[in-house]
């Protein structure tokens, strides 16, 4: 018997590789999680390097520079990622060696570069064998990868700096410039569209023809198959032709990587019958299309004490095969689109008195951050790089301002007429200040802040802006206006807006999970309008760190997908 597949429409709808999924740049969640946990998720970026006006450390000739690149961990540790070749006798080198790195939107990827003058005696030694302490240090620079990829030119110029004695404080000397250029690898942009069909499928149902669907899996690590996409189920059809499936090279690894294509007979019980399968790469499927030939399915079977593949009469054909390039998330960033960060903080009384240590809003004199502060910083430090002016709307809700009624959307900066603050630190300062100037009250309402964020997004459209807005709501409790919140979210789903909800404290967040469409049905308003796309992601901050993926990474990972879903569905093109 086959495996259960949990997906939409009772398992009958296509998942992952359908036109809608391709439009939304969506993938299989299991695949995404698997790839993310191994650092394989995200676009591949090729970095190239050059420098100008480097320090001249040689007496009789110019320096012979080599660049060493590091990734910087959250704890500040440097891990060497690459070394370039040595460029002889040059203060303005252009290194030939390139470094490929996986761009992960949801992580601040700090890169550190050290430049060295390699002594003549080491010129014939493989750079990997060089001892850096034996070379002359020329200078260093650092940046965040997102700073590079958001530039229209995709190039970032950094000052190389040098300290004569790192133990002595003081301004470092400038000693040239390092230019980092980024290009997205072609494989990240290439999408394959295929129409698959079968003939003479074996009848699995007792009194009717089969209800077939295809499951396509990527084979990784010792033959382990990871589902990539699934076709829709066709009713009573032994000669099915499925709707097109869309696969990116990034999803499958390369055109030569083997794919397992399994044909199942759908059963509503979830235990599907395997009709047959075949293993082919995209390149092989393309050849099948060109030749018009089919390939026989096989079925694993046991003969005595051994396993054999029984070749079936059934065949699979590639009816259509085409490849095209699409604009990616990074294309839009390069083309001038921005992600604008907004934040709304829960100031209801259920958080506890901010002056008491058990309050969720407690400001520890030692400087230790509370849950709200941690959420602001961890999300903000990622998103800030995608906003050119770094001025963020910041609101509170559920508090009573001075001499006023309870407000379910007040400006965190205390202003009556504008809601923006400067940078993530501006949010932190406004948050702290507000805590001392409002009284926590209630109830917990999300509708007003969501509607206000939606208004900003719609006005941005009216002003011709190329902005996509991200509203972070940090809350401790169960929302009181659940239906009004749903109504606001449904309306906002037609706008360039995503909503991140972080739950803090120990409350029951079941209603938050309802709002997160990943874990429930499509949201429906009180008037019968349904959310046209999923724009909400909820994460309780109390979740333990799961392996290599942090809570905030989970929270942010869907944003590029939501962004692309909006852009592509409206045929908005980046300005490249």
């Amino acid at each position: 018997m086959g495996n259960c597949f949990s997906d939409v429409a009772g398992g009958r709808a296509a998942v992952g590789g359908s036109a809608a999924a391709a439009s939304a740049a969506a993938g299989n969640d299991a695949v995404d999680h698997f790839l993310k946990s191994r650092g394989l998720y995200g676009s591949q970026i090729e970095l190239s390097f050059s420098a100008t006006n480097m320090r001249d450390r040689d007496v009789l000739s110019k320096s012979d520079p080599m660049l060493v690149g590091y990734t910087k961990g959250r704890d500040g540790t440097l891990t060497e990622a690459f070394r370039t070749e040595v460029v002889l006798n040059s203060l303005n080198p252009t290194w030939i060696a390139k470094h490929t790195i996986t761009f992960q939107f949801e992580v601040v990827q700090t890169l550190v570069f050290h430049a060295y003058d390699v002594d003549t005696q080491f010129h014939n030694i493989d750079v990997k064998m060089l001892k850096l302490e034996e070379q002359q240090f020329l200078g260093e620079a650092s940046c965040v990868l997102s700073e590079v990829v958001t530039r229209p030119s995709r190039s970032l110029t950094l000052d190389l700096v040098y300290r004569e004695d790192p133990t002595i404080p003081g301004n470092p000397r400038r000693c040239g410039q390092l230019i980092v250029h980024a290009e997205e690898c072609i494989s990240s942009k290439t999408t394959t569209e295929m129409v698959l069909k079968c003939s003479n499928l074996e009848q699995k149902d007792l009194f009717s023809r089969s209800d077939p669907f295809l499951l396509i899996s990527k084979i990784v690590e010792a033959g382990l198959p990871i589902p990539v996409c699934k076709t829709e189920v066709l009713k009573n059809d032994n000669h099915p032709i499925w709707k097109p499936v869309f696969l990116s090279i990034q999803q499958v690894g390369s055109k030569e990587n083997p794919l397992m294509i399994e044909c199942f007979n759908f059963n509503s019980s979830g235990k599907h019958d395997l009709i047959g399968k075949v293993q082919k790469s995209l390149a092989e499927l393309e050849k099948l299309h060109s030749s018009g030939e089919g390939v026989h399915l096989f079925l694993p079977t046991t003969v005595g004490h051994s396993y054999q593949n029984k070749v079936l009469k059934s065949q699979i054909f590639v009816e259509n095969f085409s490849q095209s390039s699409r604009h990616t998330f990074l294309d839009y960033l390069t083309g001038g689109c921005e992600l604008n960060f907004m934040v709304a903080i829960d100031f209801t009384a259920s958080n506890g008195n901010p002056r008491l240590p058990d309050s969720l809003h407690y400001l520890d004199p030692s400087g230790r951050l509370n849950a709200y502060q941690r959420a602001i910083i961890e999300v903000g430090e990622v998103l800030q790089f995608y906003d050119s002016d770094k001025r963020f709307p910041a609101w509170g809700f559920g508090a009573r301002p001075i001499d006023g009624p309870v407000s379910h959307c007040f400006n965190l900066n205390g202003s009556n007429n504008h809601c923006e603050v400067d940078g993530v630190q501006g949010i932190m300062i406004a948050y702290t200040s507000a805590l001392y100037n409002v009284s926590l009250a209630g109830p917990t309402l999300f509708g007003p802040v969501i509607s206000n964020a939606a208004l900003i997004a719609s006005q941005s459209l009216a002003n011709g802006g190329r902005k996509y807005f991200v509203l972070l709501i940090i809350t401790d409790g169960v929302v009181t206006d659940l239906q009004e919140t749903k109504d606001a979210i449904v309306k906002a789903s037609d706008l360039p807006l995503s909503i991140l909800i972080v739950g803090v404290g120990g409350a029951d967040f079941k209603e938050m999970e309802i709002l997160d469409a990943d874990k429930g049905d499509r949201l429906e308003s009180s008037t019968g309008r349904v959310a046209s796309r999923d724009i909400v992601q909820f994460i309780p901050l109390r979740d333990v760190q799961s392996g290599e993926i942090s809570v905030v990474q989970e929270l942010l990972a869907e944003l590029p997908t939501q962004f692309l879903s909006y852009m592509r569905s409206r045929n908005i093109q980046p300005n490249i």
Partner: protein
Amino acid sequence: MDRGHKASRTLEITILSAENLTLDRKSVKKNAYVIARIDPINYGSTKADFEGGCNPSWNEKLTLDMPFQTSFVTLEVKCKTGSGERVVGMASLPISDISGDYTPESYLHFLSYRLRDSRGEKNGIINVSARVKVQVESMSPAVTKNPMRNGCSSSWQQPTLGVPAGHQKNYYGGVVTGVPIWS
């Protein structure tokens, strides 16, 4: 007001797809189609989807004249069966969902609605995209609406005077200009 100027509106609605359609508690097998209706004599219809079953896909664009007094468009999903044409479900698309808010004129909205069958029970979802186009026979000066501030009106301190310094995103509501509409 110069009453000699006339404007008209056109609704461009693309019927995209539907999900989980049932008829008599059974999944629709084939031949589903949609009628978008403004009034009994002003409507458009898609072709039948022969292959999509209970998850049909049409991607057909319909263009309808839309009088200014129109308040909603009816979306009617039907199915050709052996016993004739039957209504699978209906939904109403309020014009306020595609016109009258701060989104730009002619903004392409992507909308989804719950279908209800003849007994009023839930029956799948219909997905459409739609925009309203306004044509004016002669030009008139643009009307400027009052700017509306986007910051919340509540604060925790006394209002300040003067204009805040520094670069601002256009969060003060901006100025929405448009062509005046007469009924």
